[in-house]
Every structure is written in C-alpha cells, then in structure tokens.
C-alpha cells in the first residue's frame, strides 16, 4: 500500500474512533445505547438509514453490474427508491409514534410484543431469533467482503485483514452504541456520496464529455444495448428487480432509524435528504459503471466489481485514491455496524432484560449490550473464516426472507387494528417458508415462473395469511384498541 493511501486511511480510522468515543459520553441508559435516546436529527437519521441500507453493493456491486451489463441495471435502483420512499412516507411516522406509545419499545421484537399484547412472548422470541440468525450471517458476509477488499488493497493476508476490519468495527460500535453508529454513518454516507459524484463526473470529463463516452460505449459493444434499459430484460426480470423495494418494510436495521428520530416533524426533512442522497448515489453508481466500461475499453477488468477503485487508481493521485478506498469500506462497515447493534439489542433487550434479568439496572444493560456486540462480532468472525459456509449462502436471500416475513407484519400492525397475534405469527412462518420453497423450485428449474424473485410470492402469501386469519369476527382487546387509537390521534395532531 502506498504511504499516501495508508495515511489517508489512518486519518479516516482515527476520525471514526474519535466519533465513537465522543458518542460514548451520551450513553446513560439502554435507550441511549440501542436507540440514541430517540434524539436523532433528520439529516443523521436520513444518511444513517441510507448508508446502513446500501452496503458494499452501492460502490462495488452496482457499478460492476452496470460495467458488465449497462444501463438495464437501473431497474433495481428504481424498485429500491420506490420502496424506501414508501417506507419513509407511510411507515416512519407511525412507527415512531407507536413504538413510543407501546411502552417505549426499544426494539422491533419488543414493539410487536406490546402491540399484540403477547403474554406468552412467542412473537418476541421468534422475531428476535430470526434477527439474530440472519444478522449474524449478514455481518459475517460484510466482514468477508470488507476483508477481501482490504486484502487486495493492502497486501495483508485474508486473516489479518479480517481481524483488523472486525476489531475496528467492533470497537466503535461497542464503545459508542447507536449514536456512534449513526454519526459514523452520517460521515460515511457523506464520503460515499462525494465519491459517487466525483468519480463518474471525472471519468466523463476525462473522456471528453458524455457524447464521446456514449459513442465509445456503443463502439465497444457494437450495438446500443449497453444504453438500453430494456436490453436483455424479460417482464419477470423487470418485476423481480423492482420487487426488491418490498424488502424495506421488514429490515430492522433501517426501521430503528425511524424509531430514533427526535420527533415526527423531522421525518419529512429526513425523507427528503435520504431520498436525494440515495437517488443521486444510485445514479452515480450506474454512471460509474458505464463510464468505466468506456474508459477501460478493450482492456476488460478481471473483477468488474472493483471498477470504482480501478478508476481511482488510474485517474487520481494516491491521496484521493485513499479517499475512494475509505468510501468503499464505509459502505461495507456502515451496514455491518448497524446489524451488529440491532442483533445486540435483540439479545440484551429481548432476551436478557425480557427473561433473564427483568430488574437489571440501566448501566448493567448498557454493559451487557457492549458484551453482546463483541459476542456477535466474534460469532460473525467465526462464520467469516469459513467463507464457504452454507450460512453465508443463506444470507444471500435474507433480504427477501426478512422483507417477506417481517414486512407484512410491520405494515399490518401499523395500519390495521384488527390484525391478530396468531395471524402475524403464521404470516412470518408462511413468508419465510415461501422464500425457502420458491428458492428451491428456482434451483431445480421447475418452471419459468420460478425465475420471479421470491419476495413477490412470499410477500403476497404472508399478507394474505394476515388478512384471512384476522378477518374472522373477533373482539380486539381493549388495551390494543386504546394504544392504536392513541397512535392515530397523535398522528393526526402532528
């Protein structure tokens, strides 16, 4: 690694650690540690939701896909933008209000427990276990991609890169909790945003303007397929890519940002900032891939996913290249940190505080939360050591699994008073099983319809399960009615 890149990188790491330590001064109780004391400003909540949502896909996967296949990769960004917008527009405000009314619930499992008055705590246990399993796997996948990237840039061994990356993420998450993760996400989201504007603009200017870049793309491929959004796309393919947006309603690491906003008046501002950030960044990623395709020409990249970093190496001095490397690692780290924290909060609030030590003091809970971050990070590290592990394969469709099983549960619990506990428990089971079954049918090529992304049938079936099981005549318990009505009244007032 060149010394300039190394210095930039050390400054970046030092800044993040400093943010972690400053955030730690605000951690007085568990609410501070897992939800930032519900005092996030609009901009921090917005970039936190955006950065933790996108992961390495935004700076590695999407530019790589646009480099290889062209502008037809826009369909997934469109689906994600619509999903994120609906989530901010309809879910954010209600969830913020309702979680506060539902005994100030700090986690999604705790909210569902209160929302459905679940005395047996079945729902809380199921949701907490699903979050733990998937997010530990997800964090492991993040560790792997971060380590592979760090290894290729630094020349360190995979194991060393893995340990350094994991220790770094673990330390600021563990020390500073939710506030540290949110502030760091804001910082990292800003880096990602600058990188995704700077890179395509620089390459296109370097090529002599957009006309020259586009001409080069057409000349290279021999057709204008790279610039056609319908090229190589079937109807099922387009629907599948758009359907990624359905996953948003069931992602706890994104939903907690809504719960942590300091008041509901911040939500329209946060929505505007997040959507602007997200959409410009997505365009930037697509145009980085396209411009990279034109720039490298016949000298095809062996690893298209590294197109942004390869361009940085070619076009910029090592100081700026270090900045781009930091931006890519930011994308990976912000997601992993958010997932570690959500998993830790499930363990400390939903198991430890919920079952083991109901009367535990706040300081004790914060320390147990820290210990859980370390424990989950170590479990994810163990998984990351076995990169061929089936657990990592499993998380490749965790977005669909969580989106289809939790998504309808969250939406119906917020918007339909008559939704019952039994219905949501079955809906989670039906959503998860449909994803698994559909994926299996896809793998054995059973019929062309199984090419459809599994979230579509799973989301529909899970929603139908709730509607059918809740529709029969029953009396909504008084406590649930009262909380629901309070939420509606408060929503109407703000």
């Amino acid at each position, binding site marked *: 690694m060149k010394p300039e890149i190394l210095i930039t990188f050390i400054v970046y790491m030092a800044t993040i650690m400093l943010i972690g330590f400053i955030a730690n001064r605000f951690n007085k109780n568990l609410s501070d540690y897992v939800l930032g004391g519900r005092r996030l400003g609009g901009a921090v909540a917005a970039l936190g939701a955006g950065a933790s949502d996108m992961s390495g896909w935004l700076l590695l996967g999407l530019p790589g896909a646009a480099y290889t296949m062209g502008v037809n990769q*826009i369909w997934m960004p469109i689906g994600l*933008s619509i999903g994120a917008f609906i989530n901010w527009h309809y879910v954010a405000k209600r969830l913020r209000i309702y979680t506060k009314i539902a005994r100030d619930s700090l986690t999604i499992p705790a909210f569902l427990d209160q929302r459905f008055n679940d005395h047996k705590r079945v729902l809380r246990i199921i949701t907490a276990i699903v979050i733990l399993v998937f997010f530990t796997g997800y964090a492991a996948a993040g560790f792997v991609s971060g380590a592979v990237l760090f290894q290729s840039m630094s020349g360190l061994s995979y194991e060393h890169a893995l340990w350094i990356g994991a220790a770094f993420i673990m330390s600021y998450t563990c020390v500073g909790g939710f506030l540290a993760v949110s502030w760091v996400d804001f910082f990292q989201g800003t880096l990602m945003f600058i990188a995704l504007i700077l890179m395509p603009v620089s390459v296109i200017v370097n090529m002599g303007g957009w006309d020259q870049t586009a001409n080069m793309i057409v000349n290279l491929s021999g057709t*204008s397929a790279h*610039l056609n*959004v*319908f090229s190589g796309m079937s109807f099922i393919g387009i629907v599948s890519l758009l359907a990624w947006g359905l996953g948003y309603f069931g992602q706890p690491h994104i939903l907690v940002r809504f719960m942590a906003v300091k008041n509901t008046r911040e939500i329209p501002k946060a*929505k505007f900032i997040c959507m602007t950030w997200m959409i410009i960044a997505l365009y930037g990623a697509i145009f980085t891939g396209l411009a990279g395709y034109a720039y490298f020409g016949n000298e095809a990249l062996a690893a298209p996913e590294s197109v942004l970093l390869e361009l940085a190496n070619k076009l910029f001095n090592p100081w700026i290249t270090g900045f781009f490397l930091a931006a890519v690692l930011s994308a990976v780290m912000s997601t992993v940190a958010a997932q570690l924290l959500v998993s830790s909060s499930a363990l400390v609030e939903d198991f430890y505080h919920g079952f083991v030590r109901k009367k535990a003091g706040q300081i004790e809970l914060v320390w147990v939360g820290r210990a859980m971050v370390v424990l989950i990070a170590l479990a994810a590290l163990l998984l990351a050591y076995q990169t061929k592990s089936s657990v990592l394969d499993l998380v490749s469709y965790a977005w669909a699994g969580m989106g289809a099983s939790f998504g309808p549960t969250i939406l119906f619990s917020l918007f339909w008073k008559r939704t019952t506990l039994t219905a949501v428990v079955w809906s989670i089971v039906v959503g998860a099983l449909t994803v698994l079954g559909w994926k299996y049918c896809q793998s054995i090529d059973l019929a062309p319809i199984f090419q459809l992304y599994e979230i579509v049938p799973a989301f529909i079936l899970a929603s139908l399960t709730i509607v059918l099981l809740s529709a029969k005549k029953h009396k909504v318990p008084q406590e649930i009615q009262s909380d629901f009505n309070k939420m509606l009244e408060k929503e109407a007032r703000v």
Partner: protein
Amino acid sequence: MIEASFSTASLVVLLGPMPIIVFISLIDYIKTQRNKDSSL
C-alpha cells in the same frame, strides 16, 4: 462513429420515477415547513 444516445423509452425509465420521488419528497418537506411556520 455511431451516434450514441438513449432511446426515448430508456430516457423515460431512467429520468422518470427517481427524480419524481425526490420532487415529491421536496414538496412534502416544504409543506411541513410552511405548516410549522404558520403554527408558530
């Protein structure tokens, strides 16, 4: 040299939905700000 450009259909897909989302979010934000100002 082939004259390269996006087709109309591609342009509609590329520049349609995503900027509209930003625009709606902006309008919503401005409306909230106005309501806040008028309630003060």
